[in-house]
Every structure is written in structure tokens, then in C-alpha cells.
């Protein structure tokens, strides 16, 4: 018998429990670590007092509640969302390296948000979070539309990804162009954002994206059953009673909404959508959506918290863009996956 990558029915629950426990511990540890570190050091007992009793010296209280906590929540929730969005796109295209970043969905959102901000700021004093989300969603759908159009004439999956990357370059180029020639004072912010960053997250934003991502995550979890059927292929899914046409539309809308929402608040973030679901499947040794979906969400949160920590502290006070760090960790995972897939089977 060759080395089986799967395991017996009986040993599964123990492994699932271990993976979830590990992810939750990592999440808690990274949260504390993230609050703890930075230009102002705050001790762990102080953190507990600040978080649970809202007591402590005013500077520390302000730093934790106004700066670090919103940023941590953003990294966790949006990171989890990205992983889910990637998982949905991988399901839709039946391709393990599909994701919001490589398919150009994030860049489409970025372009739409940048345009909206630059145009809207000429007429109104500020842009609301909801407007950002809406324009990001529109951009995501637009980019997805292009990808789907090319998918109709391009049967080869690798070519589809190339098309996605091209869309991504075009959108990024236009965005940079627009930003360069915009005259607003917000440009500095816009530039940081367009490279991907969790910094400067406000509590109003936290409320908006937490609601959206939470609603989407619940919806994705409830889709676990048809997603499992769809993993066998479209025809089999249909023969099991899935209305495939409707299901595909739901997949597209959900994954675009999540990807758009993440981009609206944190800009385009690379590789989380591909690397996290893949690593989670390896850890769980299964592709069952009912466990992979919640585990991917947690995994995305952990991954982004870690990357954000590095982005913030590695070269402090200079901050790296989050994509720089996620790419550093995520891209090797993708390369390893490709090598295993094409080299291993022989």
C-alpha cells in the first residue's frame, strides 16, 4: 500500500479537535502578543486590566483601544474572510491555486474603491465605510466577470490564472495612475492602503466589516453540504440534487462580496486565500468543507495576525505592507503545492 494521505474514520475526530485547539490557542497567543508589542510596551497583566476592566493609564488605554485592538480585529476577521473567499474560488474553479488575489478580484476592488474615493471626495467631505464596501464589491464582481468571460473561451486552468494575473496588473496600473494624478491630501493614506495594510482601522469600520464577514461566514458554513457535493464535480453534484446553476451564482456572489469587503478595508492582500485553505487541508488531512470552512477562517485569522505582527515590528518604526509579508510566507507554500502536484504523481 502506498502512503495514504488520508486516515481512518475513527482517528479523524481526534485530529480535528487537535487542529482546532491549536488554532484557537495560536489565535489567543497572537492577540496578546500583538497588543503587547510595539513602540510602547504593555505588560500582560496590564493588558488584561485594560481589556476586561478598562482600567490603566490613559496612554496605554488609548493605544490598546484606539490603535491596536481595532487593528487586531481587522487582521483576524479580514484574514479569516480572505481564506474563506479563496476556498470558495478554489471550489468554483476546481483549482487549488485560484484565489481573490491571483484572479485579479482584489485588484478590481482596489481600482473601484480608489476611483470612488477620488471622485466622491470632490463632492462630499468623507466616504462612508458602506460606500467603500459597495464599490469594492462592484469592482470584485467586475473583475470576476472578466475572469468568467475568459474562462468560457479558455478551457485550460493555468491560462485562466494567467488571465487573472493580467487583469490584476491592468487594475493596479490604472489605480496607481489615478492615485498619482489625484490631488487630494488623502492620497498618502490611499497609497498605503493600495499596497495592503491593516493600519488605521477605525471602530466604525470594525463594526461594518465584522457584520458583513460574519454573515458571509455563516452563509458559507451553511453551504458546506453542496460544496462537498461540488468537490466531486458538477455533474455528480447535480445528480445528488444540487441546483448547480444557482449554486454557482451563490459561490460567485459570496466570494466576491468577501474579497471586496476585505479589499475595501485592508487593500489587496496576497496569497492568504490560496495558502491558508491548503495548509488547513494538510493539517486536517481532509477536504471536508464542514471542518475545512471553520478551520480555514481561524487559520486565516492566525496567519494574518502573525504577518501583521511581522509587518509592524520587523523594521519598526518603518512598517512593511502586509502583502510583502504574506507573500513571503504564502508564495513558498503555493510553489511547494505545485511541485507536489505535478512531480509527486509521476
Amino acid at each position, binding site marked *: 500500500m502506498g502512503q495514504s494521505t*488520508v486516515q481512518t474514520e475513527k482517528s479523524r475526530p481526534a485530529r480535528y479537535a487537535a487542529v482546532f485547539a491549536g488554532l484557537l490557542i495560536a489565535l489567543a497567543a497572537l492577540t496578546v502578543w500583538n497588543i503587547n508589542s510595539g513602540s510602547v510596551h504593555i505588560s500582560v497583566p496590564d493588558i488584561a486590566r485594560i481589556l476586561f476592566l478598562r482600567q490603566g493609564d490613559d496612554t496605554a488605554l488609548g493605544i490598546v483601544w484606539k490603535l491596536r485592538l481595532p487593528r487586531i480585529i481587522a487582521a483576524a476577521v479580514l484574514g479569516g474572510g480572505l481564506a474563506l473567499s479563496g476556498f470558495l474560488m478554489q471550489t468554483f474553479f476546481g483549482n487549488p491555486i485560484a484565489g481573490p488575489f491571483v484572479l485579479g478580484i482584489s485588484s478590481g476592488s482596489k481600482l473601484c474603491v480608489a476611483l470612488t474615493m477620488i471622485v466622491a471626495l470632490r463632492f462630499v467631505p468623507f466616504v462612508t465605510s458602506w460606500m467603500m464596501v459597495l464599490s469594492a464589491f462592484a469592482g470584485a464582481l467586475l473583475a470576476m466577470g472578466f475572469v468568467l468571460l475568459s474562462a468560457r473561451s479558455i478551457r485550460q486552468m493555468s491560462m485562466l490564472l494567467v488571465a487573472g494575473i493580467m487583469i490584476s496588473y491592468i487594475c493596479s496600473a490604472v489605480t496607481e495612475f489615478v492615485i498619482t494624478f489625484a490631488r487630494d491630501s488623502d492620497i498618502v493614506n490611499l497609497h498605503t492602503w493600495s499596497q495592503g495594510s491593516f493600519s488605521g482601522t477605525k471602530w466604525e469600520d470594525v463594526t461594518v466589516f465584522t457584520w458583513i464577514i460574519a454573515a458571509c461566514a455563516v452563509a458559507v458554513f451553511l453551504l458546506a453540504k453542496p460544496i462537498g457535493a461540488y*468537490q466531486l464535480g458538477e455533474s455528480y453534484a447535480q*445528480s445528488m440534487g444540487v441546483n448547480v446553476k444557482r449554486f454557482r451564482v451563490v459561490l460567485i456572489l459570496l466570494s466576491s462580496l468577501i474579497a471586496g469587503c476585505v479589499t475595501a478595508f485592508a487593500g489587496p492582500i496576497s496569497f492568504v486565500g490560496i495558502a491558508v485553505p491548503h495548509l488547513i487541508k494538510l493539517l486536517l488531512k481532509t477536504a471536508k468543507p464542514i471542518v475545512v470552512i471553520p478551520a480555514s477562517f481561524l487559520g486565516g485569522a492566525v496567519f494574518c495576525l502573525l504577518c501583521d505582527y511581522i509587518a509592524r515590528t520587523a523594521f519598526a518604526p518603518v512598517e512593511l505592507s502586509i502583502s510583502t509579508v504574506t507573500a513571503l510566507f504564502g508564495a513558498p507554500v503555493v510553489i511547494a503545492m505545485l511541485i507536489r502536484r505535478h512531480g509527486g504523481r509521476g
Partner: protein
Amino acid sequence: MANVYFRTADLSVGYQGRALIENINISLEKGEILTLIGPNGSGKSTILKSITKHLATIGGDSFVADGSVNAMTYRQLSRRMAVVLTERIRGELLTCYDVVATGRYPYTNTLGLLSPEDRAKVMAAMESVHAAELADRDFTAISDGQRQRILLARAICQEPEIIVLDEPTSFLDIAHKLELLTLLRAMAKEKGITVIMSLHEIDLAQKVSDKVMCVSGETISHFGTPEAIFRPEIIEPLYGIAPGAYNVAFGSVELPAPTGTPRTFVLCGCGSGIPVFRRLQKESRPFCAGILFTNDIDYPVARQLAARVFTAAPFAPIPEAVYEEALAAMKQCDTVIVTDFPIAETNGKVAALIAEARKMGTLREEGIGP
């Protein structure tokens, strides 16, 4: 029509609104096996996809237990019909158990969690195809034969009344082909599950089917029992093979007979001639064969491969006239091959032919094989 379980009514199938095959009207009883035969690209898969609602019908409808397939939702149909398709399952990290368990989909709750009864049914389905020991194996790491059995178990697990299989025996070796068809046969008879499938192996189709549908590109050229369908006048035009090439009794075909004036005579009988005929065919040497009783196993193959066959009615001595004709033909040949077969009272004339050949010096004696 009381027992009809599945029927089509003026069903027309095709792609993008263009009909490929029109007016299909067939009916099946519960527990019957229908096999679709016909050349590549004749539309067998198109018909199957239309029956399973994977492809919109161009006209007409199919009925499963009097329920219109067009009117049914996918969910309703999934409780009656299961499929085994040719497309490869791309699932990663799935055990065979997981794949079979997807058959429970129409019966599980919103989250798709398996109840203890579901689990028992999954194992029962795996046992029914003798694949219980594969439960924990990686689905992508098993053999073709095992994979088809797992997919059949998946279909059985769905508790269907009808199973549709698209070329289930492709890629299987002969032992696995037989195993799969035996399983289907048992399932149809014991559980009363109706089976519709397409097969390339017409010899196996003849043996496993209750009804056969000949799909010939634009029409259903014939529909009926295997006895009515497996005749040279139906099979040969269906596949466009040369007249006389198809052998009804064996359901098999031979390569075309060598042409030209026969210079070789084969004296044979009781099956000893068949390997010699086939060797001569490969060497492109036309030959005569004889003297064969028409119930001899050599006879149907000689009919297909020999330039001339000298025959006699069975259970009686060879008539003098046949002997004379054979002798005349033998004198035209430069080689006479004699195989190893019993010579007794009724075929005593063959002994005389052997003696003549020996006198002429053209005799070559052969045991079985060269």
C-alpha cells in the same frame, strides 16, 4: 403497460437547441437492464445525459415511475436516480468511504452530517460491491476496477430505483468488466433496480442486457431484446463492419478474411482449426477449410475467415458429393494442413482426403498450434 417503470415519450436530444437524435420512444420494466450500443460519437452519452437531466431535452420527456423528469427538481430526481459517469472525480483527500458517503446527500440534514443509519447504509453499499476493505483508502490511489466498484457503491448508497451508467466498463480489464457486470445483474434482479448504461463491448452487452437500444447517429435504429438485436443484419450496418464479420453465437468479430485464390487447405474439426485459420489470416494466405459439420465449433470461424468452406449436415456420414468437391479443391492447393482432431465413422471421408494429400506430397501434419 402496468409494469413499465421507465419510459421516454418522443424524446429528442441534442445540444444548443439542435436535435441530434429525435423521437426516442422506449420503455423498461422495473429491474430490467437496458444497454445502449452504437459506434463512437453516435450519441449514446447525449441520450444518457438527457435522461439524467444533465442536458436539457430538445423535445419530449422521460418518465421515471410516471414522474416527468423535466418537471422534477434535481432534488426529487436524486432520490430516484443515481449515476456513474465517465468524468474523473477530482476530489482530493477523500477516502473511498467519503466518496460512497456522498450518495447519502439527498437524505442528510442541512449540514450534511451522517446519522448512524446513514453510516450503516454506506458500509452495506460498500460490502455489496465487495469493497468494504477499501473504506479508508485514498480514492485517488486505487485501481480503475476498484474505482468503478466504489462509484457503483456510491450510486447504490443513494438508494435509487434506477441507475444510469456511462460506459462503466471502459478502462477495465476483462476480469473487472465481468465483475462489474455481474454486480449490476445481481443488483437488478435482487433489488429490482432498473439499469440504463452504454457499453462498447457488444459481446458483453448481449450477455448482460434485457433490452438493447442501437444508437446510430441520427436515430434509434433498433430497440428490443438481445435475441432480436444481436443479428448480423443489425449489428454489421450499425457499426459499419463488413458483412459476415460479426459472429452471433460468440458476439465477437474476426479480422477481414484474406482475399485471392486459396492455395492452402485446412483439414480440421472440433475447434482445432480456429488457431490455424487465425494464423493464416495474419499471414494473408487465403485458404479452404473442410470438411466441417455445420455444428462444429470450427464452422462459424471458418465461415468468417476461409475463402471456401466444405460443409456437411451433422450426425450423418459426409455425402460423396461433398467429398468429391473437397478433393477437387484440395488438388488446386500446394499445402494441406491437417490438425489434430478425432476421425470416426461419420467423418471417415476426411481420412480418405488425408491419404490423398499424403500421396500428392502436399500434406503437413500439425498438432494444436504451429
